[in-house]
């Protein structure tokens, strides 16, 4: 009876059950492993992580997802390396260096992996890659986005080629999932070497300021190869990638702000390419007039204004999630809602470089337009573009092939496309910016619109070369072309509208276009000029 007492578990329960000795020891081992898994690399390393101003992998997941919604997978998975003493028990961590699973953000399903820097510096082992691949495969099967929280020192050197194979397995899944489910990377620590290509393949890359880095090779290798002196921050910090390289789409102050913003961002996205753009309950009247817009385009046609003022005034609740706000600022792209429905906004920014199109702005715009098209998000384009930026720097840099990307993206897109010409639509740039000719569904012009091959002065110099009375000819040209009529009489714009009615009209059009069906000719895949 002593024995009986000893092995009676949960005696308070009505149906007392007997456990064998071996069963008990398994139970204990389960508890022990779970506890160990929750501690990652141990309290000391957790404290070190906090000291760096970073959260742990688990804290990040917890903050990103709705409370108690996280369902973890592969908590017991361990690395299989037996070289360099890795087989010892003290070098085995249940779950290895990544936390994976699924959960919900505002009730909507998402798959997440969060690299754990406290275990071998978050380095990627075969097991680590296997865990990530598993949740990516599941995400593809059910059609849900994947969010990666990157904080990894790189490959698990001890594993050698096994680690490299793991990267490739992930890359392949990134590529196959591209355009099927949204993929978002949030860089929250180092991400170097081959590892950078996973974020690069995802749809959006966000960074945390001061604590995250992305580079192919670190400052030491750079010094030895090119003899350049550069700090980690200068080489691959958040500022570099959001302002100079355009690798990252946005940066946030710290882990908490980044994760909270990611939750907000997630609300804009459909779960997969089979889902329509999400519609959130809207408090902003869809027929709201915006009188401020009637005077927003300045009196002088050479004077700048802020395209963001127009965007904020038109969209729901002035709520605009800008993508790449500090890179190629002459084009504005981002997500907003119209009557609750997610839309992608593209707009030339007259405030920066007169809103011209150049290499960087074309690429920025093109990638955004393609994302929207892939995920059924209608595109609203605000046009005030004086043309492509001239100069040797641009020509040598290949503005022709890069400019073609934006043209290609707009032309290929089959989602609802609404265009508003607020002022200038000059030259080839007019064609590019979601014009009627590229299957724009609804194209509006404001009374201030001017659709022409070029500005009056340049045009007159060509048409009336060497003639006197240039001023008179210029006035005639302005009279003829510096207004919306030439485009309107040809049907290239559907209507000339009062700016204050723009929101109302777009909301109404989007309702109609919700049932738009358009299919491009069958192809294996298109061949965008990369």
């Amino acid at each position: 009876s002593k024995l009986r007492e000893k092995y009676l578990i949960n005696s308070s329960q009505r149906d007392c059950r007997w456990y064998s000795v071996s069963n008990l020891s398994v139970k204990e081992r389960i508890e022990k492993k779970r506890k160990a898994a929750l501690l990652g690399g141990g309290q000391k390393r957790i404290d070190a992580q906090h000291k760096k101003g970073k959260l742990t992998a688990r804290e990040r997941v917890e903050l990103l997802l709705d409370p108690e919604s996280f369902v973890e997978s592969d908590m017991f998975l361990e690395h299989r390396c037996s070289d360099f003493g890795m087989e010892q028990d003290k070098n085995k961590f249940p779950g290895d260096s990544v936390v994976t699973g699924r959960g919900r953000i505002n009730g909507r399903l998402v798959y997440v992996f969060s690299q754990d820097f406290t275990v071998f510096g978050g380095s990627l082992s075969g097991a680590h890659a296997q865990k990530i691949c598993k949740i990516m495969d599941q995400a593809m099967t059910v059609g849900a986005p994947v969010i990666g929280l990157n904080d990894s020192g790189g490959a698990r050197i001890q594993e050698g080629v096994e680690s490299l194979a793991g990267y490739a397995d992930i890359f392949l899944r990134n590529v196959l999932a591209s355009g099927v489910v949204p993929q978002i990377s949030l860089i929250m620590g180092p991400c170097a070497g081959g590892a950078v290509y996973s974020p690069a393949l995802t749809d959006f890359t966000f960074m945390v300021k001061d604590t995250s880095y992305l580079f192919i090779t670190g400052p030491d290798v750079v010094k030895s190869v090119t003899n350049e002196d550069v700090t980690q921050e200068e080489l691959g910090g958040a500022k570099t990638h959001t302002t100079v390289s355009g690798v990252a789409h946005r940066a946030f102050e710290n882990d908490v702000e980044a994760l909270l913003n990611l939750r907000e961002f997630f609300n804009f996205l459909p779960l997969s390419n089979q889902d329509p753009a999400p519609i959130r309950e809207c408090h902003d009247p869809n027929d709201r007039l915006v009188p401020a817009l009637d005077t927003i385009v300045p009196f002088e046609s050479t004077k700048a204004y802020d395209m963001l003022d127009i965007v904020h005034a038109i969209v729901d609740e002035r709520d605009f999630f800008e993508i790449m706000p500090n890179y190629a600022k002459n084009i504005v792209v981002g997500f907003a809602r119209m009557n609750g429905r997610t839309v992608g906004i593209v707009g030339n920014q007259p405030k920066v470089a007169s809103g011209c199109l150049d290499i960087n702005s074309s690429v920025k715009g093109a990638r955004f337009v393609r994302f929207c098209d892939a995920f059924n998000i209608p595109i609203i384009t605000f046009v005030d573009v004086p043309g492509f930026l001239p100069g040797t720097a641009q020509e040598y840099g290949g503005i022709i092939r890069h400019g073609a990307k934006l043209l290609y993206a707009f032309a290929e897109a089959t989602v609802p496309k609404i265009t508003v010409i607020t002022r200038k639509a000059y030259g080839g740039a007019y064609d590019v910016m979601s014009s009627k000719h590229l299957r724009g569904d609804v194209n509006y012009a404001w009374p201030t619109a001017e659709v022409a091959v070029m500005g009056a002065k340049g045009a007159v110099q060509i048409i009336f070369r060497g003639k006197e009375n240039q001023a008179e000819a210029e006035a005639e040209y302005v009279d003829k072309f510096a207004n919306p009529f030439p485009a309107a009489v040809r049907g290239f714009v559907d209507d000339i509208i009062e700016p204050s009615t723009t929101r109302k009209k777009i909301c109404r059009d989007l309702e109609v276009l919700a049932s738009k069906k358009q299919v491009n000719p069958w192809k294996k895949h298109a061949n965008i000029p990369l």
Partner: protein
Amino acid sequence: MASHGLSPSLNRLLLALKYATFQPRCCAVHKAHYSTVYNGNEKTFDKILIANRGEIACRVIKTCKKMGIQTVAVHSDVDSSAVHVKMADEAVCVGPAPTSKSYLNMDAIMDAIRSTGAQAVHPGYGFLSENKEFAKRLAAEGVTFIGPDTHAIQAMGDKIESKLIAKAAKVNTIPGFDGVVKTAEEAVKIAQDIGYPVMIKASAGGGGKGMRIAWNNEETREGFRFSSQEAASSFGDDRLLIEKYIDNPRHIEIQVLADKHGNALWLNERECSIQRRNQKVVEEAPSTFLDPSTRRAMGEQAVQLAKAVQYSSAGTVEFLVDSKKNFYFLEMNTRLQVEHPITECITGLDLVEQMIRVAKGYKLHHKQEDIPINGWAIESRVYAEDPYKSFGLPSIGRLSQYQEPVNLCNVRVDSGIQEGSDISIYYDPMISKLVTYGATRAEALSKMEDALDNYVIRGVTHNIPLLREIITHPRFISGDISTNFLPEVYPDGFKGHQLEASTRRELLASAAALHVASQLRSQRILVLYIRMFSLEVCGQWSLASPLLPLTINNTHRMLQSLSRDASGEIVLQYLGTSFKVRVLSKLAAELNSYMPEKVPEDTTSILRSPMPGTVVAVSVKAGDTVAEGQEICVIEAMKMQNSLTAVRQAKVKSVHCKAGETVGEGDLLVELE
């Protein structure tokens, strides 16, 4: 739809209420408080040109519409879509933006009168309203000037002459001496005769310019030296004015109304003591300080003065009143005053209508005994300026959102702008005159609080925080005010509303309520428990609306939502002042303690070229002080001019570019200190 950090039961409650409809607040639309009925049989003019802009032009047009008179607006090119232009029947552009080339351009305005056939001109205030040359030119063409005769403008325009006339008309004037003072000792003797303290200044200098106050003989000698030098060098007129200095005075003025038949009325007083840099901020009518006999004495003297100069039309006689209710004539303004609406509120007269009648030659309908004081009216001047800097430095910008609180009863808003209007450097930064009215002063003040809380202004910095603090300050409420009110009450400058424990809790609870609501997209909430306190916050609002009508523990509060972002930062306007609150779930708040404090990088002292282009103009030089938003230089790129402005107020340290130079992107242009 799951929430972040909220209990499931609360969630259910919110979801149930999610589809409750939003009820707009409703109230009678304001009508101006005129008690006199317009007599349609009295023919005045067919068409009037208003030689002004902004709120006063709109104000005049409103009365013209009531009287069936056609209106002509004049405007500068940048004002071509201004409200006064839209309101008028016809509009004529009289030149480019600078006032000297447009609103002060007499030739262009005379042309506009001729081309439109206007029979009369209302000048409003400022600009050409007290310009005798303009009045003369109008008379020469047979166009009626809606205002006093030329000689009254001239007589009252000169400080010294007006004082002599006032003396002759037995109006109390400040004891003093005006003329050439040869030596310092002579000045001392004069000062002793008047009695200290005295004020010394050059006769020709206007306003408070070059004014010195002497409390003893030594200071008088010093003041004499400075002022006589200044008089000779700056004005070429070496007359000096030495007069009694009124310490801690109130500025109280009497509205007069006179016709061309020798009749004149006083329409009671306006208390205009709340001033900053000699500009009025809050005015009220009547004054808490005057008793009926003082009021009558002041009114009668004002009328005596008006009669002495054969004044016709509306005018204002300004007095300084000392603590013993002695009053002294200051000057007479021969025009419609900015603050005329409060007089209209308490007397029921439409002053513009009366001005038009009088200009046509009609007699006044009213007798002095017909002029009542009905209730109390208060006017707040809402300016586009930053009250945290010397009680108000001008700010400029575009009104991205703008809603006047005209849905409240007994609120009158005189403005000449609308959503989308630009507050530019060219003109007065006044946004509007906010007037509230009540049977008692307390009622008018409480209405003013409501009106300020309901006023939505976005896109420019405005002085509502200061206005709300003034009208709720115990000293103001008790009527204990003087022209030194602001520097005395805020000796270290205005710092915004200071929260107490209870109001702090209200603010936090409101921010939390908004945060939760925005996450749950619902329209009615909630009982909130935040750390050590619990407040019930109820309200019906739309997350898209800038106004947040809340009931916090049974107290009604009108808050405004200025911004909110994903990281939980919410900016609310509460009790007039804007406060930044961060709302985080419990988990996020715990984790936030690990986040490092960051020192913001100072990029405000360096101005770099944002693009390659040509420098068209550099508007500053080293050593200049620039205001926030002031233009530093203009860069032209792709035939487009981009104005680069200062992000903060600072002194210019060095300038690294000059006009005509080509600059690349990121090139250093100007360094600030």
